[in-house]
């Protein structure tokens, strides 16, 4: 995105309360309140939680000269109002300009079935005393589909019944009118995105030829739209196009959310970084480490060993060179040094062979952080001018993964519930029926970059025999419960 997309954008403004990679590449950064400093009343909930979380206005002083997120929007809008002379730019943010969030929030609560009847100021006062509030769904606890099951109320689709056959033209065209299984678009050992199945009278998709594509065109973008049906007997003899070109490509690469954070919860504090997997170290005994914690590739020990990689080593990882780490990369490019992926190898018996996992949602390498690691006396991957702190020496999870477009998510004919409210609609709907960037998956090769120990050789815990696959005799006795006699 940094190399191929951002150059096409005129300007980037970011609201942030600590310096992230978005800030590194922004033209303007607006410093906004952290959760503990917020002066605007707000609330949140989640799709499975029966509780309504009020976020009362904070009595704490702001630490820096920040504003609330909505104030930034209202401020920019007011300036646009001055330029255009259109009063709506100010009027629409009246509740912010007057410091009366409760007016807007109350309208939302009154219009929403599960919160109608609540007084937001009364809820805020109760929240300040630690008294929780409930979302008033049909049942407590909330069971999605309860009314449909118990009271035969219709489901939110065209027929009102659970539908296991799709007759929309796009689904017929893409070969997904029945529930079918498709190989992943990238992370598969076989021909990508193939629909599994023997010939079936109901599965008759438009194939590549009908789109003007060659049948053997398995290139990166084309893969997303190939509707090819193959029986497993035929599929199992095929190979991923990357493997066919370079047999070092043989690892599926997954980048799930970290188990200590959600997608929008910062996990990049120094303490979280220290607790993040096996490589955290408050005092950075290994000065190559970008920070007090860093990214790692989890792999089955056999996969590492097959490549001459040991637990704790630094490893380069590369995905489809057609567009990763960015389109047009060349060895020797300054940006290639920034963007090629490097992380520690972590041997993990819980991984199955052939699958590599790397948790994402941590600070990526930037031009500044890579430069910082070279220029700073302490070797931290920290941009000198901004203090941006990376958790990668090079690259990021996006050196490997990318989003894929699924045609079945991009139709204009699926009947679905809207994001807000109960009135059915058709086609595109944000967060319901649209393109999305998850799951990210890709197919990679790996090669050893550096030994795990700064002085050369195995990283210390492996050398000391406390790592799986490197167990000392003492450790083996411990593992088997051998220090016990009845």
């Amino acid at each position, binding site marked *: 995105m940094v190399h191929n997309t951002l150059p096409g954008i005129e300007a980037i403004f970011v609201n942030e309360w600590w310096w992230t990679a978005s800030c590194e590449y922004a033209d303007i950064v607006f410093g906004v309140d952290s959760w503990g400093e917020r002066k605007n009343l707000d609330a949140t909930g989640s799709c499975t939680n029966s509780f309504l979380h009020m976020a009362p206005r904070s009595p704490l002083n702001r630490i820096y000269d920040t504003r609330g997120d909505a104030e930034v929007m209202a401020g920019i809008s007011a300036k646009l109002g001055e330029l255009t002379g259109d009063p709506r730019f100010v009027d629409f943010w009246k509740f912010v300009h007057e410091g009366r969030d409760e007016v807007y929030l109350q309208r939302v609560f009154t219009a*929403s*079935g*599960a919160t*109608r*009847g609540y007084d937001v100021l009364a809820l805020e006062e109760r929240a300040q005393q630690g008294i929780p509030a409930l979302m*008033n*769904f*049909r*049942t*407590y*606890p*909330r*069971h*999605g*589909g*309860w*009314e449909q099951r118990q*009271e035969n109320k219709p489901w*939110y689709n065209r027929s009102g019944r659970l539908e296991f056959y799709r007759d929309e033209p796009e689904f017929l065209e893409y070969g997904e009118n029945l529930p079918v299984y498709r190989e992943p678009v990238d992370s598969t050992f076989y021909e990508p995105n193939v629909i599994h199945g023997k010939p079936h009278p109901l599965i008759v998709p438009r194939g590549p030829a009908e789109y003007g594509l060659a049948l053997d065109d398995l290139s990166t973008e084309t893969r997303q739209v190939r509707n090819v049906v193959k029986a497993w007997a035929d599929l199992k003899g095929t190979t991923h196009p990357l493997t066919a070109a370079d047999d070092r490509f043989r690892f599926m690469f997954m980048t799930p959310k970290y*188990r*200590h954070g959600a997608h929008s919860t910062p996990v990049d504090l120094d*303490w*979280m970084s*220290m*607790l*993040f*997997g*096996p*490589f*955290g*170290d*408050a*005092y950075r*005994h290994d000065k190559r480490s970008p920070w007090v914690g860093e990214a790692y590739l989890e792999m089955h*020990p056999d996969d590492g060993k097959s490549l001459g990689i040991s637990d704790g080593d630094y490893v380069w990882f590369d995905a489809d060179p057609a567009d990763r780490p960015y389109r047009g990369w060349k060895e020797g490019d300054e940006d290639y040094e920034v963007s090629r992926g490097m992380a520690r190898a972590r041997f*993990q*018996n*819980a991984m*199955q062979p052939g699958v590599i996992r790397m948790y994402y949602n941590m600070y990526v390498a930037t031009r500044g952080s890579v430069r910082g690691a070279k220029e700073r006396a302490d070797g931290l991957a920290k941009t000198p001018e901004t203090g941006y702190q990376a958790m990668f020496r090079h690259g990021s999870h996006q050196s490997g993964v990318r989003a894929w477009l699924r045609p079945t998510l991009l139709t204009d004919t699926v009947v679905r*519930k809207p994001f807000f409210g*109960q009135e059915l609609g058709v086609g595109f709907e944000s967060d319901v029926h649209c393109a999305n960037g998850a799951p990210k998956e890709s197919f990679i090769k790996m090669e050893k970059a550096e030994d795990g120990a700064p002085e050369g050789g195995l990283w*210390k*815990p492996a050398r*000391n025999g*406390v*790592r*799986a696959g490197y167990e000392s005799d*003492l*450790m083996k006795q*411990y*593992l*088997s*419960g*051998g*220090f*016990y*006699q*009845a």
Partner: protein
Amino acid sequence: MADVFNWQLGRDMQYPYQAERPARQIAWIFDTNKCIACQTCTVACKSTWTSGTGQEYMLWNNVETKPFGFFPTGWDVELLNLLGPAKWEGGVSTGNTVFESAPAGERVNGWLPTSEHWAHPNIGEDEPSGPVERGTYIDKLPHDTWFSYLARICNHCTYPACLAACPRQAIYKRPEDGIVLVDQERCRGYQECVAACPYKKVMFNNESRVSEKCIACFPKIEQGIQPQCVTSCIGRIRIASFISAPETVNPQSPIDFLVKVRKVALPLYPQAGTEPNVYYIPPMHAPREYLRQMFGPNVDEAVETYQQIAADDELLGLMMLFGSTERIMHSFAVKDGIATGYDEDGTELVSVPLREPTFIREYFDEVHNTYRQNIT
């Protein structure tokens, strides 16, 4: 040296000081079966007590995945190596404690971690005990391939090794509640305590040049409130209260009930001989050999009793009270599907149902003029 009675060992043992049990002894129960190693306890403790210079590496509370997790690295492997195999005969530990096996000239058989041992505090997280073979199918307890979470704090031992080892008597055990503390004025940073503690819960401060440790959040205890690690636990796996003297059993005390009546909660590495006061409900799914090495011979009985919890309202009710109140519960009672926790003077602190009630609202709420939906 004195002879003191260690009830967990089932015998007298040698200790440098006379026995002097506190008026009451603070104790904890941790249910390992509910811990998810979210580390909220770790961060709650650290943000309260160890956010300062010199404390960067310290985790007075830590959570490690067993068997490949440790903080510091390899601490219990080293402990077991020093002691040799635990020996139990008819409920009595016949092996030597850290005091009884101390080398000549030493009071405690211990070891001093290096700076590198304290690195990698979450090493081994979520790593299984060994390779997973193709076709592995888990359909029985215990699991052949397993991992489990062990949350740890200072055990505020009855016979602390740290206290025994200090040449300056700079460590003391409070007579009113048994909390063990390092006198920051008296300590000179010899680190004998750091080497002595079998659990490695005394830590040297690089900046102040003296040692420090978990203080059981004593300012909270003095106000009748449970420690930070207990109140912050989102899994509600912990409780802090007081355990009676070994010869007493008070079935209404939460700790006594779990340790002495139901006997589902066990001390950690009791063979070390310090009589630790954090008691663990062992993980049901871990192999018994490993668990006996860690918790002693009563593991099987503890797990079996815990597995009957659905038919044991009193046990279930008490477990439901975990995490339900900030205040220390001195007693509890379970009656008619409700569990209640009480303050020292018998005041009701909190009531919880044994089973989560369900409610079905009207489809159309006439008072508020709105429909109620589960799909919104």
